[in-house]
């Protein structure tokens, strides 16, 4: 009985840890278009032990790059947050909720798989997802929460 409990605990523990496997942050986010004002369509690559994990990772990558890196070729070339380390230090809870716990979902207008879930050249399983982001709403949320300054002095 105690042996069974041991295996069960072991399985649950590592199963729980694997939930965080979608934390690979890459710059594989490319601008597609912005047909409607205030929105942005990008394709993002995501990695993960399972397909849902990889999709979640791709979505996180899209938001992460928009917020901290900027998306070249789009209107959002400049990152929404200028100093990532400072912002993460001061607003850790906000970014943890937004990027690691699915808080970005209300700002995601579309998420569509572009490729199948398969092994990439890097030897890891990945997927490319087309993500449409409501940038205006995201900015307003960040302004309201004091994460970014409102436009102005």
């Amino acid at each position, binding site marked *: 009985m105690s042996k069974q409990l041991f295996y069960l605990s072991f399985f649950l523990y590592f199963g729980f840890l694997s939930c965080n496997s979608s934390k690979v942050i890459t710059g594989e986010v490319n601008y597609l278009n912005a047909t409607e004002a205030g929105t942005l369509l990008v394709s993002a690559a995501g990695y993960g032990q399972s397909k849902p994990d990889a999709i979640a990772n791709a979505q996180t990558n899209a938001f992460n790059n928009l917020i901290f890196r900027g998306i070249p070729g789009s209107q959002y070339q400049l990152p929404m947050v200028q100093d990532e380390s400072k912002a993460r230090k001061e607003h*850790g809870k906000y970014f943890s909720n937004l990027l690691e716990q699915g808080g970005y979902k209300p700002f995601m207008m579309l998420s569509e798989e572009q490729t199948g879930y398969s092994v990439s050249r890097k030897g890891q399983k990945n997927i490319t997802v087309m993500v449409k982001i409501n940038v205006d709403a995201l900015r307003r949320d960040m302004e309201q929460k004091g994460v970014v*300054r*409102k*436009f102005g*002095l």
Partner: protein
Amino acid sequence: MHFDVTWNKKVWFGNLAYNHLFNIMKFKPLSLLLASSLLLGEIGLSQGSATEPIKTKKVQPTIMVIPFVQESQDMRNVLESDINLRVAVTKVKEGFDKRGFSTVDFRGKLKQLNNDKAMELENQTSLKQEVIEQSGADIYVETEAKPIKTGSGNSITVIVTAYDAYSGLSLANKVGNSPKFYTDNYEKLTEKAVEGLIEDFLNTMQLKFDEMVENGRIASLNITFSEGSSMDMDTEIGETGKLFSEVMEEWLEKNTYKSYFHLQGTTATKLIVDELRLPFQDEEGKTYRPTKFAASLRNYLKTIGLESERDVQGSKIFITIN
């Protein structure tokens, strides 16, 4: 005997959790690992929803979007005769409004001015200045829209440039092109061109704002003496024996933003500071204008027994000591 039966759920559940954890610690080390990782996960989840809005005091600058005109052109005529320009100006204004900005209406301000002045060609350059000054705008944004007709389709090029009204410094510039279409609907093309640049333009402006808040607003200062003045820069002030120019340098060190000022030169009759930095806001959060700086310098000069006159043109401050 009366027992108070009300109880605090948080305390009760807290004690229960503690007891449970204690039992686990005592008997099941691996289960403890599992429990702690789950507990940490819960803490992480609860942190996410605990973000509170931060209230910050902020003074927004006023912005006016104006059409670009050449020196010989009449601003009103240009704007009224060019629908593309009107669309461009309106779309740029919309971009600011979307970011929570109230912009000063250029046409409204123009109408306030004397009609005769607006129609006099020789006054056009000063008219622009007058509109900017009368509007009280801190920043003005010049907008230009140029249609381009080609065999492979028509498009519009829009140029927007933002200037600090006080110093004339350029804050941001962007050029945007609409996609090419076989259409004569230039208004729609103008909308597309502005939509394609406005976010980037505003973000660049915001970067400049941040830089200005960090380093202060640029101004310049000239201190001279009136013809009948018995003073000059080498006059000793008070009992300290310090020269007037030295006293001024000390005052500037204390009263410029982060003690930043660049002394271009000092002669016996003139002290020129070609660049000094002023804060954007005073202690109360109100806009700190160059006139306030000039007033504070005049007040200081009074305390050391000197009468002076001041003239402030934009961000240029002139002090004449009598």
